[in-house]
């Protein structure tokens, strides 16, 4: 079996990179613990990212939203992922379909360049949902 990328490791590393210029303060060592999520997706997001990786996901999401540029563009970008989550009966099912969606996107060359990091739109949308859950 091929080992999978640990999502938390990935998120933390990417977060360190992509948010460094505008958002370095969010990822510096010794960040205060993140505030509790206030979102109907909180359970899913925590299950997918891991509770201690949410701050990194939030930082990446903020940079993604900034790159998208407008609320309309963000809605278009986040919509499919939100719809995917809405269709799942529970968090476990949501995690499974999210993982599948990310794999399918990479396999189909549906990628997004966030400051040089080549990422899947779904994983970025997830990060953006985390960001929005905090704001």
């Amino acid at each position, binding site marked *: 079996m091929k080992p999978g*990328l640990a999502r938390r490791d990935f998120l*933390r*590393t990417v977060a360190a990179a992509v948010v*460094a210029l505008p958002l370095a303060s969010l990822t510096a060592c010794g960040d205060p613990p993140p505030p509790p999520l206030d979102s109907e997706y909180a359970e899913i997001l925590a299950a997918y990212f891991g509770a201690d990786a949410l701050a990194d996901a939030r930082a990446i999401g903020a940079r993604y939203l900034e790159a998208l540029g407008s609320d309309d563009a963000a809605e278009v970008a986040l919509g499919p992922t939100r719809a995917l989550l809405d269709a799942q009966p529970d968090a476990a099912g949501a995690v499974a379909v999210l993982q599948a969606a990310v*794999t399918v996107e990479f396999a189909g060359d549906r*990628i997004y360049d966030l400051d040089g990091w*080549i990422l899947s739109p779904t994983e970025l949308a997830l990060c953006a949902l985390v960001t929005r859950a905090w704001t």
Partner: protein
Amino acid sequence: MLIDARTLADGAEITADVCIVGAGAAGITLALELRNSGLAVALLAGGLEKPGDAYQNLYRGRMTGIDTWDLHRMRVRAFGGTTHHWGGWCRPLSPEDFERRAWMPGSGWPVTYAEMVPYYRRAQETVQIGGFSYDPVAVADALGMPILGFDPDVVETRFYQYSPPTRFGTVYRQAIASAPDVRAYLDAHLTEIVLDGPRARVSHLACRTLGGTRFTVTAARHVLALGGLENPRMLLASNRQLPEGVANRSGQVGRWFMEHPHYYSAPAMIVDARNDLRFYRAVHDVDVEARPTRVRAGIALSAAVRAAEKLPNFTCTLDTGDATGATGSVAPGVADGLLARRGSHVVRLSARTEQTPDPDSAVTLGEGVDALGLPRLELHWSVRDEDDRALRRAFEIVAAELGRASLGRLWVPTEDGRFSWDPQPGGHHMGTTRMDTSPDRGVVDADSRCHDVANLYLAGGSVFPTGGDANPTLTIVALAHRLADHLKTGGAR
């Protein structure tokens, strides 16, 4: 026999069946192969056994375009040539490197990979590496290490074999010195290729020592094996009889200069810590076909993907050092230690890439003359904008496959849709006297013989029509073996 040309009488006339000008990897391989063949061989080395400043200064020139190492430092003018500072990286060109690729101008060797294989086998012995087998699975298995779980139809694992490296001037000195039919002249510099009346054959070679002793070499056949910069320089500089120089009716001499742009420690790859990267992150001792060698693995796009996407060839090695110390350029302001604590491998990739041939990337004669009275060389190295865009696309595909296989993610330095990192040279000088079946498009034919001059051959990287991404020395030596066979069978006396 080794002869110091400074001991020759001024005006000496040397005769031989074959005269090889240049005593680097190609020239010495040719001389070794022609021993005991019934041919009298003269081998001219434009220096002494050890490098020296007076000889290196002959290589001084001017660089325009991409500025790289000093021209007089990237090459060594001594017996053994640039193998004096060769790094030893060996890998054959890929089969498709020899094929015509519609999107690659000038592609399509008049020699196939299959035709080259027997010569690659011999070259592997000459450069003292393992057998001619480049199956990464077999080598990884022999080492007890896994290869990464890419889909091999997308991203393949490759490996290099490391020559010790073979210092040709040292390793093969005794073999040359003791060969009764090879006379190797030190401090013997070609100054002019003199053609016969109809300008269709070499009449003789005008030569001298650095100190000024002049002599000539008259041979049935002549081989220039001076390297990818000096071969065109000598053809262009021999312009007393023909203003365009020797073997240059096509106007191709000096054009199409290619390097292998090297991008050191450029993309950053995050790989889950549970993946075993040992095969990729170190040099390993292993036997290949029962011969000991040292190998280093890398990753590349498959031939099918490159063909579908119209991409040049390239190979990425994973830097052996930990990337945390170099994350500043990836993530300015983030503490270096941040990544190291997080469990994943963070690895920089160093890419060695093929550049598409560009006629404006060229060697020409510059201003001023060297101590022999020859015009200085001017090198204009350029890389086409399309290559940077193609490399960016290539890394996107690697990144997508990393993600699809749940192996990791990739950061790619990009600007305006182009891969953006300073190219460094490999010291690989290719393409300046390209091989082509057509005398309009090439300087030499498939036998490495000049289209315009029947008894003049060229050896070395200058004859490569395209360069692939593999370090060229193994292919240069393989082509020298091939040319030796041709000369032994008496072609074009």
